[in-house]
């Protein structure tokens, strides 16, 4: 995990005060996630319900990603959960933020993180093809 460049991007995002938790995930699977002792606030107390809601949202992402679905978010209790979909995939960068946060500013860093992760995935795919 330490040498995982995607994990480094997520660790960076998690350093922002208003990002309570973040991960790269798809339906029923979390691909990359920082140590959850780095998660902030009360997010772990409502983690189960958020996790179940996330899986339902990934059902929508699976249906519409190929049609150009870019982002989805929902509010649950005192949190908002943001999904930044990786184009034409069933995966997304997911972040949990407080409902009262300055969402516009966080969106910019979410977009930066999505672009960084896409670049990393692209490079990993190219390396894989070269060595195959």
């Amino acid at each position, binding site marked *: 995990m330490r040498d995982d460049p995607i994990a480094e991007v997520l660790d960076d995002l998690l350093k*922002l005060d208003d990002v309570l938790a973040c991960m790269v995930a798809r339906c029923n699977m979390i691909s990359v996630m920082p140590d959850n002792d780095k998660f902030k606030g009360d997010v772990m107390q409502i983690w189960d319900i958020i996790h179940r809601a996330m899986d339902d949202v990934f059902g929508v992402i699976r249906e519409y990603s190929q049609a150009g679905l870019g982002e989805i978010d929902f509010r649950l209790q005192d949190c908002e959960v943001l999904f930044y979909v990786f184009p034409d995939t069933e995966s997304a960068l997911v972040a949990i933020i407080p409902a009262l946060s*300055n969402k*516009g500013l*966080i*969106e*910019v*860093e979410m*977009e*930066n993180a999505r672009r960084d992760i896409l670049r990393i995935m692209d490079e990993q795919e190219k390396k894989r093809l070269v060595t195959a």
Partner: protein
Amino acid sequence: MGCKIAEFQAAVGMSRKWDAREAGREVARNTIGKLDRPPTFVLLFSTIHYKDHGGFQELLNGVWDVLPKDTPLVGGTVAGFLNNYGCFTRGAAALTVSYPNMDVAVGIGKNTRKNPKKAAEKCAQEIIKKQNRSFVNNILLNMLPGPERPSFFGKDLPIVSNQGLIASLGPKYLEMSVKYLQKGQGLEEDVIKYLAASIQDYIIFGGSSADSNDLIANYQFMNEEVSKNSLVALGLNTDLKVNFAHSDGLKPTGIKFKITKKAQDSRIIKELDGKSAADTFFGEIGIPREYLDDRILRTTFFYPLGFKTNDGYMCPNTIGAVLKDSIAFNYSIESDEIELLTTSGRMLLAAVDEAINSLQIKKPKVGLIISCLARLETLGANIFKVRDKLISYFQEAPFLLIYSCGENIRFPNEESHHFNETFNILVGTDNSYSS
């Protein structure tokens, strides 16, 4: 990104490092490293995050580990920035110019809330005293303190207080807090008015420093010094051709109100049309008072209240706080009549095109854009589209857009203006330019 043509050089750079000292070194290296000669001046901006990652003095120390001694530097904290490299709400950014036909002087005026006149006059005098005026154009770039929420018995004053002690005492407390504690509105419009009166023949172009829209704390930089509550300015005397454009993307709705009761030099409105200001405003935009919380700004940024100035500018003013029946604004409303304005994401983006298309310089060599953080908060990740428009215009030329908590402009011998929610672009080119 750098532009090296003939004698004129300009560059922008940035850092995304978390550690303040390392970020300072990196942003300075990335910026002046693109020049062939020492910089004539540097503008430095950072987001608020360095407060908890070493502090702003360490950020400046890192910059000065790299910058040549005595390079004039001004700047401050901002909510975000975008440049040739991307869009960011965390990091540090700089813009530098190296040009022999440019004389530069910096000035500072402290305690802007306690005494705006004294601060502005002192800053202006420092610049006038140091500046030779052998060239035709005079520009004063400035940064001044933006609003900061006062504390009320140890807690930050909430943005919305509908009842209780805070709601009742809030307006009076805000007035006293600005005067005695230097917390509250920035009084920027007063500072700029006195600055303009002291330095008549300069184009004034600047912004209010900000944090990440929490309105807790913001800082200004001048040379090696980090300040709070200071006006910092950089005077340029130069033969560079400059061009300016201003836009807002706001549409008057035709819904007007008469201000019938106000306070704090027209920064707090207590009554509109003889009734509770808060009830009248929120009733008009269709938000029940019981739904209001600190996310209010996400909505009210789309509904600023504006007034027309004598010289035809529409001054949009965003809500700072709701204190029972009163609405506190970020700056004073200089009219007894205000109008509800509205906007949308599409209109905010169109304002960028409007500004760019109105510029006479079609091939700039450098650009500085000062835009309101309200636009950043409402557009969110759509500011990447703002950047796309700027890249199309600037091409390879370096540019830097900062998101501030208020914007100010003044053309020589005209009235000064302070705004919210606007987009202001200043571009320059050298004399090799022909239209």
